[in-house]
């Protein structure tokens, strides 16, 4: 079976002297949850932004559902509409109500009528437990609530896969779980997910595979139990010992 998302030998430079990604390859099958971890500066956030073409790459190929992200002929707006993305700093649109944040994509990108977009948006807000906040502006919500709205906004586009770029890194500790709970539920419903995170508890609960990156390279790509039970590379061992100390 062909993977839903496939990265082959991806190279990326920032300027001529600094290579951030070195021959990164990664296959994600439909319904799979892959957690990407690694020390800061390892290139994991850059990698995930390359998947939907937010960051251009200089070498290798990336395909989603057999559409080549790296092919200039691909209609990137159509492709991006099919892949949901959640950012570290939420990036809700501050000048729109929560409801409008969820409706703008379906209305303007998919051409859905307002009533239909609104019905779907309300259902999604219900699902992330924020239906009562639909009329508020993002600034009136806590960080955890904003991130749940951001997840709902991505889901409003009926994505085939979801990309999470450190979704809980900017949150106060007491708000991390409300976001992770939504993500766990999503994973259990069979959503294909790539999650860049340091939340190893989340990885243990729902990941199928864990990818460990360091220095712009994919060092290890293993089933979750193998990764946590017997990491192969010394760098992964060292990383795990640092973040699992407490």
């Amino acid at each position, binding site marked *: 079976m062909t993977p839903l998302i496939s990265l082959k030998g991806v190279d990326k430079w920032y300027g001529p002297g600094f290579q951030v990604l070195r021959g990164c390859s990664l296959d994600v099958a439909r319904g799979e949850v892959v957690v990407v971890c690694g020390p800061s500066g390892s290139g994991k956030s850059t990698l995930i932004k390359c998947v939907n073409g*937010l960051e251009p790459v200089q070498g290798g190929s990336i395909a989603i559902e057999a559409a080549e992200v790296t092919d200039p002929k691909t209609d990137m707006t*159509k492709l*991006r509409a099919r892949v949901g993305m959640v950012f570290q700093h939420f*990036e809700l*649109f501050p*000048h729109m109500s929560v409801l409008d944040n969820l409706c703008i994509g379906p209305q303007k*990108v998919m051409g859905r009528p307002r009533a239909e977009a609104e019905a779907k948006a309300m259902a999604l807000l219900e699902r992330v437990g924020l239906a009562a906040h639909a009329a508020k502006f993002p600034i009136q919500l806590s960080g955890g609530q904003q991130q749940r709205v951001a997840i709902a906004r*991505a889901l409003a586009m009926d994505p085939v896969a979801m990309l999470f770029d450190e979704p809980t890194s900017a949150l106060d500790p007491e708000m991390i779980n409300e976001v992770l709970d939504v993500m766990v539920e999503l994973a259990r419903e069979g959503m294909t997910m790539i999650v860049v995170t340091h939340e190893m508890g989340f990885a243990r609960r729902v990941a199928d595979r864990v990818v460990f990156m360091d220095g712009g390279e994919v060092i290890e790509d293993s089933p979750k139990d193998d990764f946590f039970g017997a990491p192969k590379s010394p760098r992964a061992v060292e990383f795990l010992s640092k973040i699992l100390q407490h």
Partner: protein
Amino acid sequence: MHGWNWTGFFEYLTNGYLFQGALVTLGLTVASITLGLVLGFVIALLRMSPLKPLRWFAHFYIWLFRGTPVLVQLIIIYTGLPQIGIRFTVLESTLIGLVMNEAAYLAEIIRSGINAVPRGQSNAARAIGMKDWQIMRYIVAPQATRIIIPPLGNSVNGCLKTTSIASVISMEELLRRTQVLIQEKFMVLELFVVAALYYLIMTTAWDFVQRRIERRFGRGFDISAGH
């Protein structure tokens, strides 16, 4: 010396000829700012274009029109250009001069507003599949508008007063009509004070309008404003 004439003052305060002049001033301001915003937006986009010649052209335009007085620009357009066969009416010359000049200032204001919207916002919009023009229209422009309103307000206020410069090419706006009346009636102080009051009323009215616009675009940025 013949002292201050209250009767004359109040008479001119309600003078239809002057009032119409004030309406012309208002009309020139609305037209200059509106067209200046359109042209300024285009210049701002050129200024941020990835193509060097376009950036260079925008830079040159801003440099030229911000670096020379409107008075000189108007005289060149109305009095100078006919010498090489290019003729504009008084109104055309006034509008061309004011619009070109406003556009140069507004382009810089608009550019700084667009640049002040965090990059993450366009990334988020791009990630849900929006096209570039949609990102500008629905995400960046509304947020940039909030940022540019205060400096834009300054421009509107300045433009209301700058229109008076068009009186030198005999544009019949408020100041020109004031001067015409002075030549007939010789009530120099009364008439100029009336003109000043008209300007003051218009700039004050704009202050109220600006505050309303600020509130409208400030929604979602101030915790207390959204409730």
